[in-house]
């Protein structure tokens, strides 16, 4: 077989498989309200079947096509063509997307399985699985998209479906509010995103990733003075979805959704979408800094610099806030923010490979932690305050062990956890990008992470039960523990795979990928490769762990509010972000809305609409006085009209 036809066959196979992976969750989601939902067993069998098939196919896609440098590209289907804008629908099958596919479908499958027990007895069981399927479909759409507009469409779909899931218990006002908040906050980011897309399209004349990459490769100055602006605008979209400061406020509130949903949103899907998108368009962000006019004279930073700093600040602030939270899900939510900050920082430090590596490992252990939290919450009769728990390790051994593994991975315990390796890759990229301050922030946050996670574990799982419900805690059965055990495995082992280096070689055009070659080399790779980050990180982990143990070993109340005073109050109030939004952004927004309301009501509705209709109405009232209703008057006028016309015609 000659190489050309081989490529063609491969590309068509890859496309077909990818379409199946993409559409299966949609089909299952559509069939549930169309009748399958009548039977609970059929509902979850269908939903799990769809994503599990997706996972198997994703793995095959990765094994078959993930090792092709640059990916497999088929001719996309034409969709619409408006003026100079030609839109196409196509799927990207390359290392980056297939890796992400595996993460999304894998975590989604486990979340589906977990949900069968967690949501058991819920009135809207079918609606839950339908929403979950739709959400998974939207996320897969982002992953597989091969152009910016298609990405944006699925991006919005993720927004809508996350609204459905976060607000799943919409009878609760707090859940409805949280869903609305998530949706609106994301909207701000999306506005920037679409502006960025338009900017890029107007300069390059295409939205296809491959075409864009080629164009910007030949001419990095294609966007002129708008280069950095375009990067920042596109990053704005990621800021919304990946919850970067100051658009992070929706994420902790999104905990109002069912816990498995939190696991899915926080681990593998929605928030990961931002980071994934940044990696996808990394070639756009990596361009040399260029600002229009006066900004250039000020020496504006590059887009990557801004991204790196936003990521660093997010990770630091979220880590600090997490220390003084008491709700088990909120602690995890802020830890997600912090870890997302890491990933975004890694992208900003020109290390999208490190970001994707951390995204992958984080997906596993964060899903593990959230599902573990779900198991705890279910076991403790929906108690979420860690100070009302305690001593859970005796009553929920499986959950406790898995949660411990997840905690260790999140902290980045050396050698035995995956988090260690991916986190170290991020530190290494910060150093390589020559950003020592961000490197220091990263290492510091590693210490903070250990502090708050150790606090969580010590208070919730060790010690003695501090409440009735904690005393009667129990495991909730195989559908809930099995996903934990399955997730514990990659949480430990995933870091041993050279995912970062592999991605660098395959998708990000890294020149000299570094692959360890012996077992010791694999295990101690970070110490050899970037010793400073590994050693400092280890030191701070030990320090953080030590502080946590000294403060919280057998503690019954949190000692920090007393010792830290106003600092603790500030952290508990989540550094006043919500208050600032309420006091500053909301009034300004209300004022602008009121202004536009006035314009609309008086100028548009009053003058233009009512004025227009009023004028017509008046003329009509005047003209109807002409009517007599007498048929003979009309007949007379008609005859006169005919006479005039005939005279004119005969002339």
């Amino acid at each position: 077989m000659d190489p050309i036809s081989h490529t063609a066959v491969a590309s068509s196979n890859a496309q077909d498989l990818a379409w199946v992976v993409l559409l299966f969750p949609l089909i299952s989601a559509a069939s549930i309200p169309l009748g399958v939902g009548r039977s609970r067993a059929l509902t979850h069998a269908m939903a799990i079947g769809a994503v599990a098939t997706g996972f198997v196919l994703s793995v095959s896609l990765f094994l078959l096509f993930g090792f092709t440098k640059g990916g497999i590209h088929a001719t996309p289907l034409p969709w619409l063509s408006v003026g100079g804008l030609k839109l196409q629908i196509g799927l990207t099958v390359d290392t980056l997307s297939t890796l992400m596919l595996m993460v999304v479908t894998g975590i989604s499958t486990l979340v589906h399985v977990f949900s069968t027990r967690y949501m058991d007895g819920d009135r809207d069981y079918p609606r839950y699985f339908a929403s979950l399927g739709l959400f998974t479909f939207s996320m897969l759409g982002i992953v597989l998209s091969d152009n910016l507009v298609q990405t944006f469409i699925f991006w919005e779909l993720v927004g809508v479906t996350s609204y459905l899931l976060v607000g799943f218990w919409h009878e609760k006002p707090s859940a409805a509010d949280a869903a609305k908040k998530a949706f609106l906050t994301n909207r701000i980011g999306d506005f920037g995103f679409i502006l960025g897309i338009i900017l890029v399209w107007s300069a390059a004349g295409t939205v296809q990733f491959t075409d864009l990459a080629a164009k910007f490769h030949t001419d990095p100055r294609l966007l002129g003075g708008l280069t950095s602006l375009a990067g920042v605008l596109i990053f704005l979209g990621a800021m919304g979805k990946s919850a970067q400061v100051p658009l992070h406020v929706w994420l902790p509130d999104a905990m109002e959704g069912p816990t498995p949903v939190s696991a899915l949103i926080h681990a593998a899907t929605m928030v990961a979408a931002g980071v994934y998108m940044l990696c996808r368009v990394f070639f756009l962000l990596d361009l040399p800094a260029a600002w229009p006019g006066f900004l250039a004279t000020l020496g504006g930073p590059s887009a990557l610099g801004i991204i790196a700093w936003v990521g660093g600040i997010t990770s630091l602030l979220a880590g600090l806030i997490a220390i003084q939270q008491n709700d088990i899900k909120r602690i995890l939510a802020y830890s997600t923010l912090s870890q997302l900050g890491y990933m975004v920082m890694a992208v900003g430090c020109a290390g999208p490979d490190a970001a994707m590596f951390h995204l992958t490992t984080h997906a596993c252990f964060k899903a593990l932690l959230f599902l573990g939290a779900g198991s705890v919450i279910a076991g403790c009769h929906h108690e979420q305050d860690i100070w009302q728990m305690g001593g859970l390790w005796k009553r929920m051994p499986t959950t406790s062990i898995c949660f411990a593994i997840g905690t260790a991975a999140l902290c980045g315990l050396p050698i035995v956890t995956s988090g260690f390796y991916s986190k170290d890759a991020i530190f290494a990229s910060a150093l390589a990008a020559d950003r020592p301050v961000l490197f220091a922030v990263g290492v510091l946050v590693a210490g903070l992470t250990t502090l708050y996670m150790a606090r969580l574990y010590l208070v919730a799982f060790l010690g003695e039960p501090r409440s009735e419900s904690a005393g009667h805690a129990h495991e909730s059965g195989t559908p809930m523990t099995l996903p934990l055990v399955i997730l514990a495995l990659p949480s430990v082992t995933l870091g041993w795979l050279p995912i970062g280096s592999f991605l660098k070689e395959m998708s990000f055009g890294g020149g000299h990928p570094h692959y360890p070659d012996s077992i010791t080399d694999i295990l101690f790779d970070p110490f050899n490769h970037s010793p400073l980050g590994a050693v400092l990180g280890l030191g701070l982990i030990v320090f953080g762990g030590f502080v946590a143990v000294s403060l919280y070993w057998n503690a019954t109340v949190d000692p920090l509010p007393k010792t830290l005073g106003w600092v603790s109050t500030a952290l508990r109030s989540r550094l006043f972000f919500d208050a600032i939004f309420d006091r500053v952004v909301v009034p300004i927004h209300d004022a602008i809305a009121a202004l536009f309301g006035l314009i609309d009501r008086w100028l548009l509705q009053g003058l233009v609409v009512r004025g227009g209709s009023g004028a017509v109405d008046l003329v009509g009232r005047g003209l109807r006085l002409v009517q007599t209703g007498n048929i003979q008057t009309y007949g007379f006028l008609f005859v006169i009209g005919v006479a005039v016309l005939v005279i004119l015609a005969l002339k």
Partner: protein
Amino acid sequence: MTPGIHHYLVVSALLFSLGLFGVLARRNLIVIYMSLELMLNAANLTLVAFSRFNENLNGQVMVFFIITVAAAEVAVGLALIVALYRKRRTADVDDLTSLRF
């Protein structure tokens, strides 16, 4: 003078005008209706005259059809007048001005 087509046409025009006057000046709906019939007959006369002087029978066929349609039209029209009279107790057009406003 031997009557030619002009004579017939003039008679037809005068008859037509008479009918038109009836439609415009009389107030009784039934009389208006009869005036309409008169106008229709005037048109028939024109057609027959043209048929004769053009040596073409098509005009006569047309008149035949017009008479048939007129018969149907009279039946429906008079039924309408009867229905209207039942509702309004009048057949005077001056009283039937509800199409105004």
